[in-house]
């Protein structure tokens, strides 16, 4: 797996277009939010910015890039080639997906460090780390599932749109309307529980219902992994 991870990181850097999409654009967007923060209560600003940064950067850096990478590897028959050896399917998938996750985690660490220095520091760092890991996990699951219905890297620009906008839309809904009304629905939808969790981790707040924020995201990741197992293709459809 290590050799696959190293190769993927090498390719990520060598391909200018992929490097821009996976590294520069998410970082750029994260930085933009620091210097042009969205509206809302000033005491909630840090949490709001962190939520948007984490969700958008992981959505772009892991979900879109991961789906595109898997589709590209399939289209070029590299998946089939990798499957000709002794490595298991799990090892191959992990080796292809972990590099984008690693890059994403590093990007988020850098951006949140800058946010902490320029705005407010997170109240509950361990909970924030958990929230970031859950976000990564959920979007990895989504990438694997979406790759199953994505025929090519170009097609990924279309197939990733629905979930991308759904997750961000739900996150915005939670951030700007709270969870007093329809809280169960907002938390159950993908991105809703995460948005609230990141907000609580950054701004502080009631930790009594943290489990109800974590469970839906884990459930979405598990559901996505289930669909990935049934829908994922290792070769182009003939």
């Amino acid at each position, binding site marked *: 797996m290590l050799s696959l991870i190293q190769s993927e990181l090498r*390719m990520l850097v060598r391909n200018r277009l992929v490097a821009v999409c996976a590294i520069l654009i998410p970082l750029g967007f994260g930085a933009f939010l620091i210097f042009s923060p969205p509206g809302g209560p000033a005491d909630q600003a840090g949490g709001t910015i962190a939520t948007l940064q984490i969700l958008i950067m992981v959505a772009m850096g892991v979900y879109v890039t991961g789906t595109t990478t898997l589709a590209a590897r399939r289209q*070029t*028959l*590299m998946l089939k*080639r*990798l499957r000709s*050896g*002794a490595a*298991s399917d799990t090892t*191959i998938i992990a080796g292809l997906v972990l590099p984008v996750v690693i890059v994403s985690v590093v990007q988020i660490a850098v951006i949140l460090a800058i946010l902490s220095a320029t705005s407010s520091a997170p109240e509950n760092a361990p909970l924030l780390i958990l929230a970031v890991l859950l976000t990564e996990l959920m979007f990895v699951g989504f990438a694997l599932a979406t790759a199953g219905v994505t025929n090519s890297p170009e097609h990924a620009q279309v197939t990733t749109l629905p979930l991308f906008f759904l997750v961000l839309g739900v996150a915005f809904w939670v951030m700007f309307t709270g969870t007093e009304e329809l809280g169960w629905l907002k938390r159950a939808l993908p991105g809703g529980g995460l948005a609230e969790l990141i907000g609580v981790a950054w701004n502080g707040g009631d930790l009594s219902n943290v489990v109800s924020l974590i469970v839906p995201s884990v459930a979405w990741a598990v559901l996505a992994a289930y669909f990935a197992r049934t829908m994922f293709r290792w070769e182009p459809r003939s």
Partner: protein
Amino acid sequence: MTNTQNLPLVDAAGTGDTIVETQDLSYNYGAHGEFQAVKNLSIRVRRGELYALLGTNGAGKTTTLETIEGHRQASSGTVTVFGGKPTDRQGIRPRMGIMLQETGYAADLNAVETLRLVGSLSGRTDDADRILERVDLVAKRDTRVGQLSGGERRRLDFGSAIWGTPELLFLDEPTTGLDPTARERLWSVVSDLRAEGTTIILTTHYLEEAERYADRIGLMHQGVLASEGTLAELVADHPARIGFVAPTGVELPLPVTSTSNAVSFVTTHDLQGDLTRLLVWAERGGHTLDQLTATSSSLDDVFRTLTRS
């Protein structure tokens, strides 16, 4: 047919142990299995053998090969490799090298990086520079795969397959896209591997390669194994041909079976006897036999008969 490569011959009825065996292997494509690409195929490949699987386009050769390799699950029937299931990657794949019909490498990795990546996943150890030297790609060591020619990629593919000298090697149309020199070099490496005991199963469209190198040949047509055996066994039922421009106004000693561009052809299962008869007749009668040819039956004849059936 003599084996011009001085390769170890495997007795067709031989006692070599079986490495690969399929019994009534079938493979269906389509959501409901509408198209049967391989039908009840049973073959056995023995240790040290070079088995060539030939056939028309769409005959099911690659599907068969990929099912034996473990890339596909058979729709019915059984496949065993080294006595186990080919899908057992940890147990079986380290003993297998696979060269797919089409290369599948990342364009942004160079040749040596690609070999090291594929090699690290093979379950065997080797040295990338040694492999590059064997496939004559030393000069392209640091060239990205995207900049290699089709033939160079094919050689890289072959290098990946022979990494770590596998016990069993699958080659799916290995010389397609290679120039004659590269083809000869590939077969030289294959000969070396055979001398080291590697068993080889290959598909090819070049009949002369199968004639020259294979111990046994299987001929597929429309998903079925139409015939199988050594080259001698396959051509035994196919007649030889004598061709000549027949002198006019004389009765020939042999029946003419066909004529083309004024050349008459006689088919015969006794080439030496009938040719002698014809030459004696011509000598005695003072007849001239222009454009005289005598051709033994070949794999090409067998293949053409198969495709006409």
